[in-house]
């Protein structure tokens, strides 16, 4: 009987260990995969580690994570311990109130705390970035430290300090020589909790960060949409660091104790390994934070803040620009125009943004952009005519086009018949034949565009009745078709042929078709969105001069070629577009690469505040309905 129980326990324990470690081991194995797949191991290689080491983004995220964690741990441990000692001698009412206050970050859902910090920083116009992240981390770490120090203080004899002072100790001596040594275990475990909390944090960091400062969590969150084994590599590195630190902290004391039998070691028991662990982390940070220097370049030491779409720049664009100018580029990514707008409208400063047409119009209307200085620009004649002088900025006073294209349907030629597409157009997304086999794109504008076009209306309609019908169209789609609503995840998934159909930007379709020849791209005759994304300089830019240099560089043949060939989106540079789509070009024969410009029903988005609000609210309701329909 008893034996049976033990076996049960052992089996359960074994399963538990497998459960906890399987994903971690899997991740470590695939960080050495030669191929890009997360499911097929094709051979051993270190390429993702090289990729990781070369990616400044990743290295900086690593640096931010651990430097914030160490600083926050140190500060919150010191402050928390002092505050706890102080409070223990305060009046009971003060103590009780503060206990409740400290409970706020512990007992509130993290997202509420995060939003509180964000509103605080925005209300008091504190520029979001490294400092705000650090402040927030300190703020939520201190309560944990106090929580683990308090019980130790309570168990002390309250007369201890008095006794020490009666014997001639100054208050400072009483504190450092008598009280602190007694509560050391509490302080150390508080510090450990603070460190874990800080390294682990995502939600709070995500809401309080800015100016391109990312920690590891934020980086994984923003990069997780595309298959990127470098994430596995950097994760493996983190596992390694953490394991090393933990083992040092846990194993070292045992060894020390063994060597020198209990005696005087006990006090240093934890400090020595903790210090050693901190040293390891600092060492790693030093390796990570390598900074190259060069000289004699025009923008040496200056920084350019770029806010762009995710996966929207060529592999060498930024390094090349930095090498040419000496400037440092800090790039932050967004996945929707709306997300970008909210940050900019709330005063975050960037030098370059890459919004879409209608959003540019909105930002011009709201005086968020500054006029371009044409004396600094030498790139306008490189651009293709189709993207110049569009209604959102007729004289191109504010914007220089970056990429352009259509929105269409990517489909698996082996699963979807051309006839269905031709007959149904966007209504193919309501065709139950393809139920459970479709992707929608998480963009309020383009989803409503699809529905409106399918119903035969203009995508710029201001008629609420028509918008309501489009809403019902979308509701029908999410309730009957079991779509997955995605953003960039669609790219790798369609390239692997996971679904039959998807609503997609032409540039993503180009990439998919170049990866998988079974994929096709179809533009419905009922018309679609002819969009363009363009570079603009916000009114509050700190370095407009460098921003102009960046615009020139991106629009030049080399910059534009690198961008377009790597990302797959159609370049605004005429020559690049011709070379890539022409004979021998990388995208020869791929219809998605050349946008359709000859259909009268294709439109360009126009901004209208009222319809935007309506559509934005309706789209979040469509998503909620999709979620509830599951």
């Amino acid at each position, binding site marked *: 009987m008893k034996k049976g129980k033990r076996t049960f326990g052992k089996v359960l324990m074994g399963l538990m260990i497998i459960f*906890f470690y399987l994903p971690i081991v899997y*991740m470590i194995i695939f960080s050495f995969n030669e191929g890009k797949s*997360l499911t097929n191991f094709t051979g051993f290689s270190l390429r993702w580690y090289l990729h990781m080491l070369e990616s400044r983004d990743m290295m900086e995220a690593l640096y931010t994570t651990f430097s914030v964690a160490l600083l926050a741990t140190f500060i919150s441990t010191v402050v928390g311990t002092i505050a706890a000692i102080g*409070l223990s*001698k305060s009046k009971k009412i003060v103590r009780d109130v503060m206990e409740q*206050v400290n409970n706020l970050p512990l007992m509130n859902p993290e997202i509420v705390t995060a939003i509180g910090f964000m*509103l605080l920083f925005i209300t008091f116009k504190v520029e979001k970035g490294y400092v705000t992240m650090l402040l927030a981390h300190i703020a939520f770490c201190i309560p944990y430290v106090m929580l683990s120090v308090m019980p130790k203080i309570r168990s002390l004899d309250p007369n201890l300090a008095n006794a020490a002072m009666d014997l001639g100790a100054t208050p400072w001596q009483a504190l450092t020589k008598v009280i602190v040594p007694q509560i050391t275990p509490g302080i150390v475990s508080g510090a450990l909790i603070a460190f874990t909390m800080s390294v682990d944090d995502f939600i709070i960091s995500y809401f309080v960060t800015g100016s391109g400062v990312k920690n590891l969590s934020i980086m994984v969150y923003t990069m*997780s949409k595309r298959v990127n084994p470098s994430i596995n590599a950097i994760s493996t590195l983190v596992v390694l660091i953490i394991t090393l630190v933990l083992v040092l902290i846990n194993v070292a004391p045992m060894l020390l104790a063994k060597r020198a039998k209990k005696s005087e070691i006990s006090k240093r028991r934890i400090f020595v390994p903790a210090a050693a662990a901190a040293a390891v982390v600092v060492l790693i940070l030093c390796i990570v934070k390598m900074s190259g220097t060069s000289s004699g370049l025009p923008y040496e030491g200056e920084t350019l803040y770029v806010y762009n779409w995710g996966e929207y720049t060529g592999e060498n664009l930024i390094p090349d620009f930095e090498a040419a100018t000496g400037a440092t580029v800090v790039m932050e990514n967004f996945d929707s125009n709306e997300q970008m707008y909210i940050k900019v*409208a709330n005063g975050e400063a960037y030098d370059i943004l890459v919004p879409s047409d209608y959003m540019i119009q909105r930002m011009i209307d709201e005086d968020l952009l500054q006029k371009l200085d044409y004396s600094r620009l030498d790139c306008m004649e490189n651009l293709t005519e189709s993207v110049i002088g569009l209604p959102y900025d007729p004289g191109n006073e504010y914007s220089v086009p970056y990429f352009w294209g259509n929105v269409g349907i990517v489909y698996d030629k082996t699963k979807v018949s051309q006839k269905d597409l031709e007959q149904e157009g966007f209504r193919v997304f309501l065709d139950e034949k393809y139920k459970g086999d479709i992707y929608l794109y998480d963009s309020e504008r383009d989803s409503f565009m699809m529905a409106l076009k399918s119903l035969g209306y203009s995508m710029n309609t201001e008629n609420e009745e028509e918008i309501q019908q489009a809403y019902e169209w979308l509701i029908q789609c999410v309730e009957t078709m079991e779509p997955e609503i995605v953003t960039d995840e669609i790219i790798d998934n369609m390239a692997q042929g996971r679904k039959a159909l998807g609503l997609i930007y032409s540039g993503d379709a180009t990439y998919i078709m170049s990866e998988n020849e079974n994929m096709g791209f179809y533009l419905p005759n009922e018309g679609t969105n002819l969009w363009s994304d363009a570079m603009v300089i916000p009114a509050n830019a700190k370095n407009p001069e460098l921003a102009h240099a960046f615009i020139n560089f991106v629009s030049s043949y080399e910059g534009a070629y690198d961008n377009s060939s790597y990302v797959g989106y159609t370049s605004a540079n005429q020559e690049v577009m011709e070379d890539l789509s022409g004979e021998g070009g990388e995208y020869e024969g791929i219809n998605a690469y050349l946008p359709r410009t000859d259909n009268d029903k294709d439109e360009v988005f126009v901004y209208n505040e009222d319809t935007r609000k309506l559509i934005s609210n309706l789209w979040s309701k469509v998503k909620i309905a999709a979620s509830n329909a599951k």
Partner: protein
Amino acid sequence: MKRFSQLAIPYIVWAALMLILPMALIALYSVTEHGNSIVSFSLTLDHYVKFFTDPDFLLILWRSLVIAVKTTIICLLLGYPVAYFIARSSERLQSILVLCITLPTWINMLVRTYAWIGLLSEGGLIQQILGFFGFKEVELLYTEGAVLLGMVYNFLPFMILQINTSLCKMDHSLLEAAADLGANPLQTFRRVTLPLSLPGVINGITLVFLPAVSSFFIPKLLGGGQYFLIGNVIENQFITVGEWNFGSAISMIMAVIMMLMMMAVRKVEIRNQGGKEE
């Protein structure tokens, strides 16, 4: 002595600024209109009305609570026996096992969640194993099951560690005493072990339930873009819709619900302790 109490003053100021003020701001935003500036000041309860009159929002809230409850129950059912097993092992094994459970919690949560994507995706290891047992083509990633799995995976260690701590604190002579007095193992467990481990269980429930309700990256990474929980709704309001006032109102609602639940849980704990003293 008085002088020591002054040590707390800087922190009281800090806490007022960094802990109380943010909550006050959320409350303020939630009852004002279009509050990206505090200049236009008019009180309104519209945001709360909007939330409570829309069945979709209520359904999302309900689903978030349900999945959090499911997560908590699974964690409890899995966590208790594991914690029990650890507490009954030899001291040496105990510290090793505790380390084994702790280690994953030290590794960034996003990283751990991301690791599941490869395992669960089409053609991944789990699907192959299921395929081997005859379950063909089961969709794993981007389902509610995946979200539940992700939550259990992330939060289970908290449950185990909390219960384990309270089991280890327990005086073993109590068990012997119970046995000596003729209780069978089941009775001993029900009458002695379980009540004594209750504080750990309650702490564990708090530590699992709280993050599970408000999590938004687990549903986003493992549930896909169309899988919304209340955390995602709040994120969406702040990051893409830009209706901060409405977002603040939902945050307040969440905070209040959580507070009520925590109070209820604490009450159970207090009553239990009261019962013991009788």
